[in-house]
């Protein structure tokens, strides 16, 4: 399989539609004309690369990366880990994974955020990791809280962690959200429900992973992420005699 060839087409019925009226912000922010498709060129198949040397020792540790010396963030302690793979099931090494989230009370550290729940002075809510040779990643954090938002009269986001992913090509760029197994707010959320297929939603729900907890320290959730895969090039087809 080529590491530089064109990507498999994106299934835009599997992804949320641009216009999902129950998610009110999408009404004025969704293009109304059809997208124009064209075959991938180098402009789409190449993308920025990030070295492991860019990552600081606490970048993956949201419990401590903003905390005062000797302090740590408040809330249930979690390990979140998984693999970044492509649609062909192959691990994506060297992928930059950026995460951000609210604190245990559902409050974001952001100037536009006005929720009554207090900030945690020892928690910023951002972290990043680069996947290893097999596509594996792991970070430490606290369980984010649910929070209300001005969509309907009583809308609450499920607990979630935002993920931003870079593969090897600019056409693989993806931002998504991770939810937590068993959260009853998931099926009520219009942002979740912008995704039409329940099997696609299930792919965003992390599962409790008791085998990989840190006993007497942190629970663990497993969250695997799939990026677009590269198709076979004509050259490879010939080589295989297809």
């Amino acid at each position, binding site marked *: 399989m080529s590491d530089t060839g064109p990507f498999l087409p994106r299934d835009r019925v599997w992804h949320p539609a641009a216009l999902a009226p129950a998610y009110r912000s999408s009404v004025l922010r969704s293009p109304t004309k059809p997208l124009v498709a064209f075959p991938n060129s180098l402009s789409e198949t190449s993308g920025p690369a990030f070295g492991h040397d860019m990552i600081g020792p606490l970048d993956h540790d949201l419990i401590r990366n903003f905390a005062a010396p000797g302090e740590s963030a408040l809330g249930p302690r979690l390990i979140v880990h998984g693999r970044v793979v492509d649609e062909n099931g192959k691990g994506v090494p060297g992928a930059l994974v950026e995460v951000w989230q609210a604190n245990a009370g559902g409050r974001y550290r*952001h100037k536009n955020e006005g929720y009554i729940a207090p900030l945690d002075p020892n928690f910023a809510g951002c972290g990043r990791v680069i996947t290893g040779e097999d596509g594996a990643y792991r970070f430490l954090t606290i369980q984010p809280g649910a929070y209300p938002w001005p969509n309907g009269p009583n809308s609450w986001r499920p607990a979630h962690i935002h993920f931003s992913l870079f593969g090897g090509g600019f*056409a693989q760029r993806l931002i998504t959200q991770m939810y937590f197994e068993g959260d009853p707010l998931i099926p009520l959320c219009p942002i979740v429900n912008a995704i039409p297929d329940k099997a696609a939603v299930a792919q965003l729900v992390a599962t409790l992973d008791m085998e990989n907890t840190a006993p007497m320290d942190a629970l663990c959730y497993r969250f695997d992420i799939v990026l*677009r895969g590269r198709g076979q090039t004509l050259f490879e087809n010939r080589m295989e005699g297809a």
Partner: protein
Amino acid sequence: MTKLRESPSQTAGPYVHIGCMPNAAGIGGVFPADLGAEMVNDQTLGERMTLILRVFDGEGAPMTDAVVEIWQADANGIYPGGEQGDPNFTGWGRQPADQEGAFTFHTIRPGTVPFADGRMQAPHVSLWIVARGINLGLNTRVYLPEDAAEHAADPVLSLVDPARRETLIARKGNSGYAIDIHLQGAHETVFFDI
């Protein structure tokens, strides 16, 4: 071989800056600098170019909570990362809006790169836009106004309705190139399925 399904996208939400550019969001001390903030240094080859983008919603309001990323070739038309690329150019930039809604990139004029079938493409910058209310990041391109001859032969522009091609071409202003991205309306920008 069983093909897996791509993880479905979700909106970046209104607080994307916390994760993607914490320093610009006022969160200091976690990362030394925001990724993508600087694309060039003193040794970068090529003609310096300032690119100023504005993004508007369906009512013409500037989207000050969006994040824009760009990806482009170096002055010789080589994408960074390979051995032949300009080592002093990242090719990738990421910016938040300022208070007036402007996303400003300090970069260089890109060289030409080939299309999938070998034809040459006009110089262009690839864009990716995410924000609250955008469920899946939007892809578009910016072309430059001096390259009209190349535009006529560009394999991607040739797929676009001639009446809409102007939405992809920047204008030359006092402080650099500028382009307005309209998500909806009479001047709706052409977005691509790449």
